[in-house]
């Protein structure tokens, strides 16, 4: 596609990168069809091709972002379904990331929105603050319908409170910095990203990961100094906080990699995985040692399902007759192109695996999207739940805490894939399956 940047603009490495991406797009329009917001809203401005055009215009003009552009870019889930569809290989993710940074730097949002975004950016990446906030939200949750107003802000606050769990699990000691020794002969050594929101909302996911990996002979390191991957702030266009979070992780993992060595950096929250795998790009213009570290860590980063497929997994007990609907998280299927492994592992574990129609469409979670765009997120949630229900599963498995939270409260329990794999290889049954299993036993 034709672009219109001045030679001066193209000296800026960020703009040069975006120009290269735009030049790859031939405007064929394939991406529109698989974009969740286009499917729902039926306006090309809410499709990847429309956004690419809006972003192109905004970047070419060089001026500050305007409200219409912000509106349509904000509605993008960053699910990256368009990147799976695109025959030309347009790197939409890097383009929209650039646009978000440009918006954050040049556009002044209304005050309540600024406050909400700052609070989310402050709280979500910090487990102790998140825990505190959730305890508060838990108290406020029953009163959310009393929140006045029909505006976007009131909707957002109600959505925030609705997402808060009724009961917060106690903190898990397994997630604090330490080394979990391999059982038997050590076959490998990995670092585990324990995540930020996930370790507060569902510590059982990290516990299952650690149990299963150590049982398979893998030493699991929880390095000191590691924290949020940076995705939450990165997707808000808050460049510096995202880079700071990434740097902390790079320092922690590099120390391990350069010390006793690492075979992989394991990530069991696929949203984070997409970002960690992109560290190499994020740090491409940074000075050493960061650039080199980022490249090496991105190459080591692996989703837990990817790693298990590589080292081999086998169940140790017969699986109960359960039909598992596999919900493909966008960050896994589109962001990391991991589509086969989780299903193959679940089948290997002995489950009957089914997939919903429209599996490529996002469930609406998308990081902070379900808090910032509750109306669209709710429609996507309902559509996803209906597609899942049509397959009549006993339970749903997914590889991302965001999706698990978003889809909870439907007619079936939700678990992380790793919890099922751990269960069939000697771990405890996932607690959330309690009622289902009790009903089966009766």
């Amino acid at each position, binding site marked *: *596609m034709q672009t219109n940047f001045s030679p001066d603009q193209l000296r800026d490495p960020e703009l040069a990168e975006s120009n290269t991406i735009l030049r*790859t797009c*031939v405007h064929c329009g*394939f991406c529109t*069809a698989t974009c969740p917001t286009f499917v729902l809203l*039926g306006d090309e401005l809410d499709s990847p*091709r429309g956004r690419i055009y*809006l972003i192109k215009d905004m970047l070419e003009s060089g001026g500050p972002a305007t409200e219409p552009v912000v509106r349509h870019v904000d509605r993008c889930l960053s699910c990256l379904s368009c990147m799976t569809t695109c025959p030309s290989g347009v790197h939409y993710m890097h383009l929209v990331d650039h646009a978000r940074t440009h918006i954050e730097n040049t556009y002044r949002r209304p005050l309540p929105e600024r406050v909400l975004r700052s609070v989310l950016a402050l709280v979500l990446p910090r487990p102790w603050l998140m825990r505190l906030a959730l305890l508060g939200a838990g108290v406020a949750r029953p009163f959310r319908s009393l929140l006045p107003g029909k505006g976007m802000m009131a909707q957002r606050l109600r959505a925030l409170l609705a997402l808060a769990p009724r009961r917060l699990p106690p903190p898990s000691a397994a997630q604090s910095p330490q080394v979990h020794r391999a059982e038997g002969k050590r076959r490998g050594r990995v670092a585990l990203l324990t995540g930020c929101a996930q370790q507060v909302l569902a510590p059982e996911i990290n516990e299952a990961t650690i149990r299963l990996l150590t049982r398979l002979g893998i030493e699991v390191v929880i390095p000191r100094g590691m924290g949020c991957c940076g995705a939450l702030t990165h997707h808000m266009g808050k460049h510096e906080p995202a880079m700071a979070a990434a740097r902390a992780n790079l320092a922690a993992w590099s120390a391990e990699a350069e010390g006793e060595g690492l075979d992989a950096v394991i990530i069991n929250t696929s949203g984070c995985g997409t970002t960690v795998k992109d560290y190499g790009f994020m740090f491409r213009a940074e000075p050493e040692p960061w650039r080199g570290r980022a490249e090496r860590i991105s190459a080591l980063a692996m989703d837990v399902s990817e790693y298990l497929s590589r080292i081999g997994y086998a169940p140790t007990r017969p699986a109960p007759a359960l039909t598992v609907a596999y919900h493909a998280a966008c960050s896994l299927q589109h962001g990391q192109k991991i589509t086969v492994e989780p299903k193959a592992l679940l089948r290997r574990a002995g489950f009957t695996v089914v997939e919903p129609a429209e599996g490529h469409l996002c469930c609406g979670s998308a990081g902070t999207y379900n808090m910032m765009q509750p109306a669209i997120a709710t429609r996507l949630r309902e559509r996803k739940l209906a597609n899942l229900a049509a397959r009549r599963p006993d339970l749903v498995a997914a590889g991302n805490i965001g999706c698990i939270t978003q889809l909870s409260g439907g007619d079936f329990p939700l678990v992380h894939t790793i919890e099922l794999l751990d269960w069939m290889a000697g771990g405890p049954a996932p607690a959330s399956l309690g009622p289902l299993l009790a009903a089966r036993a009766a």
Partner: protein
Amino acid sequence: MIALPEPKAEVLARRDDIVAGLRALLPADAVIAEPERLRPYETDGLTAYRQIPLAVALPSTTDEVAAVMAFCHREGVRVVPRGAGTSLSGGALPLADAIVIGLMRLNRILSVDYADRVAVVQAGVTNIGITQRVQEEGFFYAPDPSSQLACMIGGNVNMNSGGAHCLKYGVTANNLLGLRIVTVEGEIVEIGGAHLDAAGYDWLGLLTGSEGQLAIVTEVTVRILRSPEGARAMLAGFRANEVAGACVDAIISSGIIPVALEFMDRPAIHACEAFAHAGYPLDAEALLIIEVEGSVEEQDRLLGQIRTICERFDPVSLRVAQTAEESAAIWKGRKGAFGAVGRISPDYLCMDGTIPTSRLPEVLGRIGAMSREYGLQVANIFHAGDGNLHPLIMFDANDPASMHKAECFGADILKLCVEVGGCLTGEHGVGVEKRDLMDVQFTPTELDQQRRIKSAFDPGWLLNPHKVFPLAAAAA
């Protein structure tokens, strides 16, 4: 460069009133009028031509379409219909004084009747959406343009779209039973029905391929077919484009009709392989994808016959897909081929001429020669069995000289198609792209006859008036 008709100054002057009129008819989010939100609607799949419209209307029902049409008719405002905006001939290119009516919100499948094998769908349903809806019951909708993932059935009707599998099943026109249309005056009219054949004149035949110039299509009744028992694709690689072209002619003239017979040359093979990882032969100069379907015995028999024919042309490789996944990858690459060319060139012009298959070797040779003459690379990806060529001329839109050369090269290819007894467009439509070449194909009298049909439906020439006819003929 394509000229657009002069915008009507008096319409431009009433812009605010016209937008206010639209807002009175449609919900708030269904009218787009701010300049920066209009820009993404300035073009379609042919980005070489661009024009920001006066406004965009996004109706959700036939009644809303009718209301907008009646309003535009009353106000003398031109209208450009748009589906998914995937046209490669500029079929959805706006005008400065026109309202773009986007039909993407009419995206519901209204009914499916398996007993009578009929589906009624709104114009904004994607082509593949019909098949996706009926495939679990063992049915499919046959015409399959390569953009079928995104392109919409209303656009298919207006361009009489084809596709890889049309060799056996025919194009859109052969798979339609009825239409619901809105006339330029805003009247809702039903044409045809859920059965063969409609009473009276063949209005369906007239409207199919009318490029949005006669009416707005809002609902389509299509025929759905039983899926075949199975299908298998063979990949045959050859040493030269001309050799592969001769092989196509040999297969077709032997009386075999494969369900699809597709051609890709070296640049296309490499670009598509990078996208689809289909195992295309990277050492071949040209590749044929030949698909047969039916029972296993039928497939084996046909593949055997085709293999014997291919072997006469000294193939570099012959391979039959062994699994459904392999077949899927082969078609993913073929259907994404135009986009995949984006990996090797920032821009392309896609031609759509059709020729008798016996002339394939000669025409491919002459296109190759022209490519060297113009100094522009060409990727050939096309429906060989139908003789429907799609040379993609690669150029750089950031360089105006390159763009001009590409246009001249494209015109020369299309003139060549007409010269050897073919025509300007197989399935993409004339649009704006081939408009000025219409008098290569037609005499003034023939053009005038077509123009009078347009005038009978749309006396004021409000509907997509800048397409199909050379501007002088349109103004006559």
